[in-house]
């Protein structure tokens, strides 16, 4: 992969944990790096899936907390889920 296409990809897919209120997009991938959360990567991935975060699902950030804009309330397809930005870093969206 050339350097330019890599940066293009990075620009295209942002972690949901960095998106602001009003952001709408589609989940591209769930990629959990060790240390993203206090949970082991595999476990966090399973928990995210159990709340409906899988590739292709539509997401929208509905609300943010008052301190550090954290946690966030996210609409996933038709349901709403609350989570912290830290864990939302594992959700790559575009």
């Amino acid at each position, binding site marked *: 992969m050339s350097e330019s296409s890599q940066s293009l990809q990075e620009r295209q897919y942002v972690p949901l944990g960095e998106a602001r209120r009003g952001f709408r997009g589609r989940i591209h991938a769930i990629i959990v790096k060790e240390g993203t959360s206090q*949970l082991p990567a*595999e476990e966090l991935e399973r928990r995210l*899936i159990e709340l409906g975060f899988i590739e292709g699902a539509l997401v929208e950030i*509905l609300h943010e*907390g008052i301190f550090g804009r954290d946690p966030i309330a996210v609409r996933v397809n038709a349901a*709403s889920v*609350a989570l*912290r930005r830290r*864990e939302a870093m594992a959700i790559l969206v575009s």
Partner: protein
Amino acid sequence: MNVIARTGVRHFALIGTPNSGKTALFNALTGSRQKVANYPGVTVERKSGAVETASGNIITLVDLPGTYSLRARSPDEEVTRDVVLGRFPGETMPELLVCVADATNLRLGLRLVIELKQLGRPLLLVLNMIDIAHRRAIGIDLDQLSAELGVPVVTAAAVRRGGTDVLVHRLDQMAGEPRCPPEDSTWTATTTSELRAAQREADRIIALAVHMPMKPDTLTTRLDAVLLHPLAGLLILLFVLFVMFQAVFTWAQPLMDLISSGFDALGALTHEVLPAGLLQSFIQDGVISGVGSVVVFLPQILILFLFILLLEDFGYMARAAFLMDRIMGGAGLHGRAFIPLLSSFACAIPGIMAARVIDNRRDRLMTILVAPLMTCSARIPVYTLIISAFIPAREVWGLFSLQGLVMFALYAAGIIAALSVSFLAKFFFWREDQTPPFMLELPDYKLPRPRSIAIGLLTRAKMFLQRAGTTIFSMMVVIWFLASFPRPPEGATRSAIDYSLAAMIGHWIEPLLAPVGFNWQISVALVPGMAAREVAVAALGTVYAIQDGKDAAEQIGHVLASQWSLATALALLVWYIFAPQCASTLAVIKRETGSWRWMAITFGYMLALAYLASWVTYSIAAAFGG
């Protein structure tokens, strides 16, 4: 043989994701014929009830703890997994799994059904809240859904009259079918890729069989715009909490006064009817005031749980946790811990029971452990007595009264202590533990149904009276025994308590308490003071032989002011911030955690804190000549 097989009781189980309306459905199906107990060995609630169908089949229905999958991430979910797999000792393996899913939000429920199908057990899918789905113009093709899943599907509206008729009819049919012999399951924990595949399959089926309108629930969206607003949302939450605190603190008071004066009157009646002596004392001071000391908490518990159930059913509880997450999380507490802790300002007992709103065991234990540090209303008589006797009523900076400031400092010390203890405990004991991250569904708002609320309240009241009540009552009898035996000899000159075991214990612990400045009178009063904190005031009166009367409290104040040093008074105030001086609270902790261990830990750490803090206070105050 055959007869037994046909008319025998069938065992079905309700299983579903959190927020699927499973509990409302369980309430609708079993009504008040519910039994709530604990699964042996774990502090997980076991709810079961009987359903008698039109054709005379009796079905016992177990309401399994809500879960997103059978992976079991918590003790509650382990129970669900083990019961479903027939691995839970003493539990009958359910013959039918009745899987409850929210018809307005099928994704998570269908994924669970797909996972449960792998078990090869008989399964029935109930689409709950179908009335809301219809109103929101969500179209569900039941035949196609059933065909794609390979599972029979019925609809239900748990909160509507007659909303469960179709379901009950279907359960009746299935109860008439021959039993499916339990088989050894070859279940293995679902892997990440299987979970993902199951969710994809669920989404595929939803795309085929469900027509969703483009707009999400507009009422929820509009309400959330205000209730989850960073500033307005927090202000509204504070207002809700303020009303709740007021209700528990003040609305309950007339009822509590009524109950305690009722029991007092009953006690006075026995006093007149029975001849003076041991039996009279046992009935009046042991049994009647023992039962009274249990029942008196009921108004607070009912009012608090009324609020909790209303907020939970309305869907606000998850929002409150969202708003409080950062604030509580800083001290290592769960976002939902604010309700138990706030209620503990009125009384730690409803507060500790309210910790049930926290699902995670570690977070729940932490909340229970620090709840007794919040300044409960029973400390107020002790605080006011000592403050009015020892703290001069003068103004500070022309603004505040010194007495008020001391009172405020005592409250603040309780809060700071609770937050620090939880912070330190998290740091030292649970550092290696995985804190489950804050992740939860925000369900759509729903109007709470009075019937479901009433059933919930009734269950709580029964549980408190049966479970906590027996322990509190027996502790009260023990304390009565200590304060009454042995009896004073003929022609005794001092008050009866001076001859009792309580006095012996008091004298015995006096050398231990001397370094914190407590004399033997205080030490003796602390023993019956275990019944409830405010009892210590009356006990001090008895020890100093002050006759009960209208201005007894004022008299005690005068006597104390003349007999104690300021250092002793301050040390006793500080003692009461921390000391585990409440047998009822300890009893409830034992009941709620299901173990003596956590009761002992609470008792131990609070006693250690109390001793240390009073010693420091006494030493410093004495050094300044107080």
